[in-house]
């Protein structure tokens, strides 16, 4: 049996036996040696840091060696000199003895060394990262406020609508209840319409000057509002009166806003105020009510003028180009499409042929969802956040900084994402670098923009929201892409809003064409094919399945509809309950259900005379 085998198989026994016997052997041997030799052996054994039995073995062997030397008549000094360097001897002896240790110990040692090496690498990484983290400073060169105001600054004073809108708002004579009622009067309920019209007329007559100013503003080339972080005290006071709150307060809680004062030299994108948005809605609703009153009085010119102005407001409001502005514009466009449908249903004759055509052209010019929704403002926001979080190596990359994390945590607090705050020293090595974060944002935006160009029925492709979840769902990725989790908007909901608005607009274009056809032919068309190409360039698609929009001729009118969220054609059947109406309207619905009705675009209410059901 080799010494290695015996060492492995009876390691403990041998160790104990050696330990027990070491004293009986080594002590007399060592004691007989001259002090320098004894000390040399002791020094070697101490430095070699051996196991007890190994030490005893080495002591005994070296002692025997010196005894042999002395027996040969060699002087102790010569023996000591021949011995060599004690430090080197101890080191080599340790190495040699360690190689003789059992396999399990060798493995344990290697594992220990590997762990120690990994820990060392980790500590080194963290140390280097921490130093770089604290010495790094963000390079803030990009000015979001300039980007957002670029279009406004390019407009001449005379071409700006906002000064007129602002003046109109400041001159409004409305109670908060009247503001809440604006735009809600509907033709769909004949029982309440007269009362609603009377109230609307009262409001309109009190605010005739403001309405005129709004019309004048709508004729301007652009909105021309210059946004920033300074409050418009006069407008805020008016807003408080009309809305119950001043829209100029920074986002988040007042306490958070106080804790996070804006950068006065270069205001943060997300702190830039958009105080005009609520007033844009008020202005559009005023005009919408004016159009409703005009329609009820048979005043086509008034209706046309109001609708044209509302569309103009929607267009102007796209600048500054933020997502929230786009969504407000979409809501404003919906005012026009809804009212146009009401007019075509209840008083089609009040609009002249030219007005019908003009409205159709203006509505068609709105474009598709990608024209209604712009992500430019979101891009500005994330570019601003990136520049405040990271260093910039000039090549598109950079590392997270301490100042950046502080900024991020304030951002999370102000945007009501307190749970997304990250621990500076611990989590920062896990956060994606500048390039990676930028790429993730760009991928997200690319998907969102592709989604805006993709019809609703083509939903198999990966959506921005799904990618967002991929980036932010896991525990580690939540930290890695923390900035995305607090800055990315709800892309899919935005997309569906835009798609719904476009579908509604498309239906209005068909209804306008059908009315033009009736005026030309004396009757509504039997099928939509008759409208193409003279009255309609092409038949719009049903937003749910991509088939041509559904149309059914009735005795005196027609029904224009989509099959609705249940994807079943119920021949233009109206919902009989509010629940059914709500379900079929939810065209983005992904589940399977069946509703005995369709999504009716025209007429806007069930009309027994039309024989819809």
């Amino acid at each position, binding site marked *: 049996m*080799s*010494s*290695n085998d*015996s*060492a492995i198989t*009876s390691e403990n026994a*041998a*160790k104990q*036996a*050696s330990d*027990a*016997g*070491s004293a*009986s*052997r080594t002590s*007399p*041997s060592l004691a007989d040696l001259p002090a320098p030799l004894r000390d040399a052996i002791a020094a070697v054994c101490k430095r070699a840091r051996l196991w007890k*039995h190994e030490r005893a*073995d*080495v002591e*005994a*062997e*070296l002692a*025997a*060696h010196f*005894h*042999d*030397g*002395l*027996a*040969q008549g060699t002087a102790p000094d010569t023996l000591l000199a*021949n*011995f*060599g*360097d*004690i430090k*080197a*001897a101890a080191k*080599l*002896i340790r*190495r*040699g*003895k360690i*190689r*003789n240790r059992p396999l399990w110990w060798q493995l344990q040692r290697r594992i220990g060394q590997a762990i120690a090496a990994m820990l060392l690498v980790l500590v080194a990484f963290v140390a280097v990262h921490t130093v770089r983290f604290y010495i790094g400073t963000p390079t803030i060169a990009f000015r979001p406020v300039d980007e957002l105001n670029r279009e406004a600054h390019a407009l001449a004073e005379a071409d700006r609508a906002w000064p007129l809108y602002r003046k109109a708002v400041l001159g409004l004579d409305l109670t908060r209840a009247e503001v809440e009622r604006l735009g809600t009067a509907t033709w769909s309920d004949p029982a309440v319409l007269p009362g609603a019209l009377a109230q609307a007329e009262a409001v309109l007559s009190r605010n005739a000057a403001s309405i005129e100013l709004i019309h004048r503003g709508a004729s301007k080339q652009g909105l021309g509002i210059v946004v920033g972080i300074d409050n418009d005290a006069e407008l805020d006071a008016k807003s408080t009166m009309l809305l119950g709150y001043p829209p100029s307060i920074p986002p988040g809680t007042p306490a958070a806003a106080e804790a996070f004062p804006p950068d006065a030299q270069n205001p943060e994108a997300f702190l830039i105020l958009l105080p005009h948005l609520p007033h844009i809605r008020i202005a559009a609703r005023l005009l919408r009510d004016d159009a409703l009153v005009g329609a009820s009085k048979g005043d086509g010119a008034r209706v046309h003028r109001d609708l044209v102005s509302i569309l103009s407001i929607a267009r102007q409001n796209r600048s500054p180009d933020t997502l929230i502005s786009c969504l407000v514009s979409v809501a404003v466009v919906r005012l026009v499409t809804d009212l146009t449908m009401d007019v075509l249903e209840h008083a089609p004759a009040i609009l002249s042929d030219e007005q019908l055509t003009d409205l159709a052209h203006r509505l068609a010019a709105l474009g598709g969802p990608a024209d209604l929704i712009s992500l430019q403002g979101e891009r500005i926001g994330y570019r601003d956040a990136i520049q405040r979080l990271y260093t910039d190596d000039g090549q598109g990359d950079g590392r997270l900084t301490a100042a950046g994390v502080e900024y991020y945590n304030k951002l999370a607090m102000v945007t009501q994402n307190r749970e997304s705050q990250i621990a500076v020293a611990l989590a920062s090595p896990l956060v994606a670098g500048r390039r990676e974060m930028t790429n993730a944002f760009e991928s997200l935006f690319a998907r969102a923009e592709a989604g805006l160009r993709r019809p609703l029925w083509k939903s198999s492709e990966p959506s921005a929201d799904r990618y967002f979840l991929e980036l932010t769902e896991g525990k580690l990725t939540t930290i890695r892409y923390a900035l995305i989790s607090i800055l990315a908007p709800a892309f899919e909901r935005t997309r569906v809003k835009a798609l719904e608005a476009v579908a509604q607009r498309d239906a209005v274009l068909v209804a306008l064409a059908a009315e033009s056809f009736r005026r030309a032919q004396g009757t509504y068309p039997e099928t939509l094919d008759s409208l193409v190409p003279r009255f309609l360039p092409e038949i719009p698609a049903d937003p749910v399945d991509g088939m041509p929009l559904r149309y059914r001729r009735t005795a005196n009118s027609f029904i224009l509809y989509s099959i609705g969220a249940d994807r079943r054609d119920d021949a233009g059947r109206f919902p009989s309950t509010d629940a059914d109406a709500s379900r079929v309207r939810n065209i983005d619905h992904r589940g399977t259900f069946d509703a005995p009705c369709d999504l009716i675009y025209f007429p806007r209410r069930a009309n027994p005379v039309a024989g819809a059901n």
Partner: protein
Amino acid sequence: MKIERELMRGAGPVAVLKLLNRRDMYGYELVEAITQRTEGALAMGQSTLYPMLYNLEAQGFIEGYWQEATDADAAKNADRAPAKRDAQTSSKSKPASRDRKYYRLTDKGKKRLADDSKQWEAVIRAMKALGVATLALPRPSETEPCLRPLPQPQ
């Protein structure tokens, strides 16, 4: 002439194996034998020899055992096979006081020695061919008489 460290690193173990191929030897004996046989060229202190022995032991080329030092040891050692084999203990077990630790060549060590010898011969031939070494290789029989045991301590 002292050999440079790098050369010594290759030559030392072979020298030890070669000496142990003749008979079992203990540390001091090995130091003396190497010094004598190589005229000091491969002389090494204990600080080099013992770690080298432990390494050779770890690699399984040699194995150590403790044996009591007696006057008869030297004569018996000359016969290669130790007389007190029954009294031997492994290097890990308890030796008696006044013991010496002997080393013997294992089968693995013998194979290694044969391999190393061939390599050294090839190196020397190559060096001769290059004119670096000029001495003739000694015949194996020429080495035997010189390996005499050391006198035992009184």
